[in-house]
């Protein structure tokens, strides 16, 4: 009966994808437990993987101090938008169910190194972190609350850009969030913008680039137009490191590249320099 035992044993071995994480950049097989414990950073190539908003907040906030605000603000389907695959409302509802989040950014109050801050993180897993009216509203409210309570704003961006399904009103979120960030800065309060993978399109062309300090994680994608669109426009191949955090730093648009494990300490130190 050995063959039967062998077959049963084989059937009980979990499939490889449950045990190993394949690094999307270098292809290394990393034990899943190790990958997750490192808040997914590849031990071989230092690839900084995408994180859910709440995991990121947990990494930055002093333990147990995060209190979510403006969670009642959710998406709006102003256009009653439909495309070839169905209604936006159905898609976004499915995303809300799957992620347990109401929008692509999560915002709240927290302490960082004992400093009271407004802390937010975008969630790439919520419709590609796209900038909807609800996202914009949450960010505007965060700015206004930060001004009222004299808190610095620390915001982690992760977004493909505007949310097409919300049409022109999605575009307008670039204007209103940038206006709100401007107010915050004019009130003498710091805005620390943390750029994570990816920060592109309308989010890079609004609040994400407006930090008093713009700090990026290593190797992440940051840019306005997509690589393919640019290559098709200029009929040239772009260098492999085009639109990486390192490329942006060289060209003067990112203040510093900081590894995930050092991010919190960097933000706290920066806030100390800013008088907090």
């Amino acid at each position, binding site marked *: 009966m050995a063959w039967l035992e062998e077959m049963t044993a084989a059937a009980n071995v979990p499939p490889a994808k449950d045990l190993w994480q394949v690094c999307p950049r270098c292809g290394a097989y990393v034990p899943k437990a190790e990958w997750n414990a490192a808040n997914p950073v590849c031990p071989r190539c230092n690839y900084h993987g995408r994180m859910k908003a709440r995991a990121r907040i947990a990494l930055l906030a002093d333990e147990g101090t995060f209190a979510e605000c403006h969670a009642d603000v959710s998406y*709006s389907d102003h*256009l009653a938008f*439909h495309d070839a695959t169905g209604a936006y409302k159905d898609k976004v509802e499915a995303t809300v169910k799957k992620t347990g989040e109401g929008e692509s950014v999560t915002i709240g109050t927290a302490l960082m190194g004992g400093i009271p801050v407004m802390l937010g993180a975008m969630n790439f897993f919520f419709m590609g972190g796209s900038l909807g009216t609800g996202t914009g*509203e949450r960010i505007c409210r965060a700015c206004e609350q930060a001004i009222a309570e004299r808190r610095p704003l620390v915001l982690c961006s992760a977004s493909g850009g505007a949310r097409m399904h919300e049409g*022109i*009103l999605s*575009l307008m979120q670039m204007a209103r969030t940038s*206006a709100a960030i401007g107010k915050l800065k004019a009130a003498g309060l710091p805005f620390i913008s943390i750029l994570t993978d990816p920060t592109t399109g309308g989010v890079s*062309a609004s609040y994400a680039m407006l930090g008093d300090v713009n700090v990026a994680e290593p190797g992440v994608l940051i840019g*306005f137009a997509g690589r393919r669109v640019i290559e098709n426009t200029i009929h040239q191949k772009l260098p492999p490191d085009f639109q990486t955090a390192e490329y942006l730093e060289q060209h003067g648009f990112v203040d510093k590249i900081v590894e995930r494990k050092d991010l919190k300490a960097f933000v706290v130190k920066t806030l100390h320099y800013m008088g907090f």
Partner: protein
Amino acid sequence: MKAIEIVKMARDPKRPHFFDYVKGMCSDFEELHGDRLAKDDRGLVGGFATIGGEKCVLLGHNKGATVEENVAANFGMANPDGYRKAMRLMTLAEKFGLPVVTLVDTPGAYPGREAEERGQAEAIAKSLEFCAALKTPIVVVIVGEGGSGGALAIAVGDRVLMLENAVYSVISPEGCAGILWRDGSKAADAAEALKITAADLKRLGVVDEIVPEGANGAAKSPKTAIANVKKRVLAALKELKKLDKEELVARRYGKFRAMGRFN
């Protein structure tokens, strides 16, 4: 009319462009060049202008009238240098108490290697933050294509006017169809769904006023279109001049703050 037909009208090369408005609307125009950092972008131009006796700073996207101009101006797709020049000219306007008039007509900000290297994202972002707080009236006219962030960067104003057959959108119908329909040829469906016409945008509260173009549109009746723009711009300036600077900026903030407000 179907949205995609209006898109075609908005893109019609025979429509009046920036320098046609200068000719038809201004008794004087003194172009000022350069961003004082790196370049003079031909895709976004501006200078001192006199419209119906009103001195102002006029700036806008420039698609160009000849093939050479088209190429030099990237067909109105501005580089970061263009947005930085716009901010420089608006700073002049603020300092010397002149109102700003912008003419928006671009397929979008230029997607180029150097544009990215010189910070296209930062230039647009900065311009949004900057326009929102500028202490002088800003009147925006969407005269042709209002293409995404490249248009919005000079479209944060106290009054946003839009020509009857202009369009204003977060993404081109072709781009949207390519992504959400996975078929670029479904641009007509995307154009409809995106709600990009003047009537749609007025209803959504993004545009304050629709400017009529005259018989068969601005390409066929450029004189009427330009005269109508001039009339509406002057009316808007007259109203805005009455407001004190703080009130003006507070109202502008409130106007954009309300766009897509969560209820």
